[in-house]
């Protein structure tokens, strides 16, 4: 089996500045298909900014960033759930499903809602959801269109233990590797959960490489 894996993201000297402040400074990064990247660093080190850059939400103020996937192949989970509070769970997913032209939309939505334990709440307005439920629905939205590039910012935030297990299972399904396991201590937050995930899926579905990128303050 050839070991040549397509480069999905390449960053050189990546910098993003907000006014005077530099949130991300001079970063080099390579993400290939099949990579599972965890970005670590203390609060304020620019993790969220980096993820927004990788997802294509922000443009770099300096440096080069090449992302080899199209917009419709990116799944982005932000701090906020990015869901319409006045719409129901189903309607939210239906709306995004239409925009992303998800084939067999209804079935896919139903499947995701079931998998994340939200089927019973599908007709409830998201405004009435708990934080954990909203986060689960946000994950559904992120995974809805089977993205090739997953960018998750604090995916475990707000999830209870059930929800966290569901997410664990989901990530494991995505990487479909029997031997997938995160080396202990690597990239885990205080509660032992991954704080950020960038996953570039591989054709064979296997995680080829587990890496971390460390960001420092300032």
């Amino acid at each position, binding site marked *: 089996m050839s070991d040549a894996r397509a480069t999905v993201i390449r960053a050189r000297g990546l910098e993003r500045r907000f006014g005077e402040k530099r949130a991300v400074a001079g970063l080099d990064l390579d993400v290939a298909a099949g990579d599972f990247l965890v970005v670590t660093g203390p609060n304020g080190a620019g993790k969220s900014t980096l993820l927004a850059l990788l*997802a*294509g*939400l*922000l*443009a770099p103020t300096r440096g080069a960033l090449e992302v080899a996937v*199209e*917009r*419709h192949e*990116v799944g*982005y989970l*932000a701090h*906020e*759930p*990015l*869901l*319409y*509070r*006045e*719409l129901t769970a189903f*309607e939210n997913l239906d*709306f*995004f499903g*239409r*925009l*992303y*032209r998800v084939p067999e939309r209804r079935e896919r939505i139903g499947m995701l809602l079931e998998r994340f334990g939200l089927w019973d709440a599908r007709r409830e*307005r998201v405004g009435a959801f708990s934080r954990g439920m909203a986060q689960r629905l946000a994950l559904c*939205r992120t995974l809805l269109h089977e993205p090739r590039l997953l960018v998750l910012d604090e995916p475990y935030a707000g999830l209870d233990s059930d929800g966290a297990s569901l997410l664990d299972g989901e990530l494991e399904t995505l990487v479909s590797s029997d031997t997938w396991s995160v080396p202990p201590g690597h990239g885990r937050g205080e509660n032992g959960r991954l704080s950020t995930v960038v996953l570039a899926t591989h054709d064979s579905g296997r995680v080829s490489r587990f890496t971390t990128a460390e960001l420092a303050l300032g």
Partner: protein
Amino acid sequence: MAAVTHYAADVAALARKDLLIELRSRDTVPAMLLFVVSALVVFRFSLPADASNLAATGLLWIAVIFTALLGLTRAFVPEREQRLMDALVLSPCDRSAIWLGKALSVVAFLVLAEAIALPAFALFFAPVSWETAAAFALADLGIAAVGTLLAAMAAVTRARELLLPLLFLPLAVPIVVGGVGASVEPDPARYLAFLGLYDLLFAILAWASFEYVVTE
């Protein structure tokens, strides 16, 4: 050709979403309806007893413009408050589709408001002609086209809703001229044509430039 159907489908999904949200929350349209009637009543008291139809018609147009501002101020609130604009911008749809979908829902709200305002005006002041109704129809398009883009701009600033009237009113002057002219002048066709020209030019400009307003 597939691109056009996709575009239309995106616009439909976006407009549908806005109308659905309004149906659920009932935030905007009831406020607009109440506002326009209240404004007409207040205006009645500001006019002298022998005021002409022209003066009253002018005030009708002012009432609608400010009602429109009320509605436009709410236009991007869900997207701003819940940072949903990020989700929309990230989705594969053309950014101009976001503008078009939102503008269509604004037109719908305006039509609803006028469905109340025009009969109220006819009741309080004087009958409303077909030309006036046509002028409002054309004006709605222009207001929605320009207002939606400006609302997206204002949403990103620190002053937020405060900025929208400042940005919008100078651009609304031609609309008022066209509208009042069509309502009172003996040759309304010129004014209706002018409104059409306004709509065309500014809609094209807004459609083409919306992308730059919502992306980094």
